[in-house]
């Protein structure tokens, strides 16, 4: 290995996460390390200004096709808070249910389609169709199940239609609820097989303790609602996010960087796991233990394992929610809340699959948005990804450039920064300075 080299991982432009990695090393010391985000900026905070209260969730859902349920949920929660709308318990349970399903879908997409090829040493899921058909079939089944369930409750797998301010435009039928329960039960053998495969996978041994931030509450593994909690010892009401969460523009990224107690923090499955381990289902805890994941975990590569553990939890908890809803019976009268327009501000915070997601809207008297602020999970992780790489590179500095590059790419992928980010590190340009 040369003492002095430069690694430039230039990604092809992508949709919601075009990222390049720039690493310059001189005499085995890092001279420059940047995770560049030249992704096309979208300007949602500008697009929202002047739009009606009932359009905001349709617009912000389009921030991300992978976690459109999360954006829709954060959005309707912000609007409901601003307008003082009280939704029914039934609505909250159904939203938590569809929320689980998107989390299963998104985590499965990452674990099986994007991270798994790394585990098998190939460039995509397609070669695995030939070499490991069983795991590909499991992946397709789990993802299809999750998508079908989002479709049943949300009306569409990408950009749900039925989840609106005040409740739902249409409820699933009892038969559909029973079908979903059967689908979930039939997923267990696939989860068991995945567990066996993941046990054989070697996760890089690397640790760097950082600040882990997620939602948390007393009654459940928080995904849809809760306080904002940090492993650095603070917990705040979600409406007060600005008292801790800071954003800044950095030149090498169209995505802003965030910080709270330190210069960087992590959000996502591993943060949720670290903050809320004791609220996981017993089954999910068993999976975690078999895969060697313990709270707190300071290994960012374990984020993939935490995502899989969450799939198990979401399957378990979905069955519980369905049983409750079936016992209570779905009531058309509880489908929509009363809506009255008023001026005001509201913050909607949820755990998107990739972490803490914040929508903050201010409405005028006519129910039009006058100001919007959005904080996206991946932005919150950018600074932490850089800090992790600064710590990771010296541990692999004696290896070949290919191995160093792969280690950095795998680290970025472990964060699941977005579907395209995680696979776009393909147009790799590697130049030796000497």
């Amino acid at each position, binding site marked *: 290995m040369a003492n002095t080299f430069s690694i430039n991982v230039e990604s*092809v*432009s*992508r*949709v*919601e*996460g075009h990222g390049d990695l720039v690493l310059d090393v001189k005499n085995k010391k890092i001279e420059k390390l940047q995770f560049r985000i*030249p992704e*096309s*900026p*979208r*300007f949602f*905070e*500008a*697009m929202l*200004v*002047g*739009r*009606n209260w009932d*359009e905001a969730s*349709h*617009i912000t859902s*389009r*921030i*991300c*096709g*992978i976690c*459109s349920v999360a954006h829709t949920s954060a959005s309707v929660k912000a609007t409901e808070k601003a307008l003082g709308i009280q939704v029914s318990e039934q609505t909250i349970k159904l939203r938590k249910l569809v929320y689980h399903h998107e989390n299963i879908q998104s985590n499965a*997409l990452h674990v099986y*389609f*994007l991270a798994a*090829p790394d585990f098998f040493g190939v*460039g*995509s*899921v*397609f070669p695995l*169709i030939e070499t490991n058909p069983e795991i*590909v079939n499991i992946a*397709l089944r789990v*993802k*299809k199940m999750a*998508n079908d369930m989002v479709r049943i409750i949300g*009306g*569409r*797998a*990408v*950009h749900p*239609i*039925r989840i*609106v301010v005040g409740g739902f*435009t*249409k409820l699933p039928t009892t038969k559909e609820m029973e079908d979903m329960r059967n689908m979930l039960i039939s997923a267990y053998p696939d989860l068991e097989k995945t567990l066996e495969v993941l046990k054989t996978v070697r996760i890089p041994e690397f640790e760097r303790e950082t600040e882990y931030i997620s939602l948390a509450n007393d009654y459940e593994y928080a995904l849809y609602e809760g306080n904002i909690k940090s492993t650095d010892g603070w917990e705040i009401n979600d409406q007060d996010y600005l008292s801790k969460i800071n954003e800044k*523009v950095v*030149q090498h990224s*169209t995505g802003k960087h965030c910080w709270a107690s330190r210069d960087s923090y992590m959000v996502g499955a591993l943060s949720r796991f670290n903050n809320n381990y004791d609220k996981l289902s017993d089954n999910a805890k068993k999976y975690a233990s078999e895969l060697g994941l313990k709270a707190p975990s300071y290994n960012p590569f374990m984020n993939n394992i935490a995502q899989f553990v969450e799939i198990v939890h979401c399957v378990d908890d979905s069955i519980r929610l369905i049983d409750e809803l079936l016992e209570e019976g779905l009531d058309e009268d509880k489908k929509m809340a009363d809506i009255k327009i008023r001026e005001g501000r509201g913050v909607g915070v949820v755990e998107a699959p990739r972490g803490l997601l914040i929508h903050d809207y201010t409405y005028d008297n006519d129910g039009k948005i006058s100001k919007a602020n959005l904080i996206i999970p991946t932005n919150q992780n950018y600074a932490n990804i850089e800090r992790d790489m600064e710590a990771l590179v010296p541990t692999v500095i004696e290896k070949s450039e290919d191995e160093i590059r792969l280690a950095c790419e795998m680290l970025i992928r472990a964060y699941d920064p*977005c*579907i*395209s980010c995680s*696979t*776009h590190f*393909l147009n790799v340009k590697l130049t030796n300075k000497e």
Partner: protein
Amino acid sequence: MSGKPKVGIFGFTGCGGCQLEILDAEDKLVDLASAVDIVHFTEAITEHSDDYEIALVEGSISTNHDVERIKKIGSIAKIIVAIGACACTGGLNCLKNLYGVEKAKELVYGDKKDWIDAIETRPIDEYVKVDYYARGCPPNRFEILQIVKALILGKKPEIPNYPVCVECKRLGNTCVYDLGMTCMGPIARAGCEARCPSNGSGCEACRGVIDEPNVNAQKDLLAERGLTVEDIMEQFNLYNACKKLV
């Protein structure tokens, strides 16, 4: 090397949902992978190549860098299929144009706005010739697969050119106007199986309007409810701010 058509799947400014729709065609994904050579698929494959005949393009053009890239694709691909509202009409990203690009840069990035590469959002057909459009937000994955299938067989894909109302009638939906909502269904292009009205919500014309829209019928429908075209323009411009209605 097989004689299978080489396909590239590309993403521009958008949410990634269209490429996800393709990945969501779980049942057909393995078939698709065996019928074509996917040489470039930004969301799923590490390896990639610039040798392709068919380009499936998602997203709108909203930076100078986007312009360079779409032109390059235009110079390589023999057939370009625009996928999703952003590629077909500019989609929701065009709301930025209404606000004003410079103003938007300032609002979001403040005094650092000069670091940001952003131009007025446009659909891809303002820069390259588009052969087929798989419209919608999100597009219909079965329609995307149908188009690809037709192209493999050397046939012309059939894209609906009738309004969403036709699909609602076929499905026996209660008209959402009768539920007290507004709807673009009378002039919006079908092909989505009237997804929004079927789920209790008004159509927002995410697939754009049909080629010869009966705007008068829409006006009459609105007039019966004391509304004008202007009243629903906001709803229409959610996905069509870059296109003029009539």
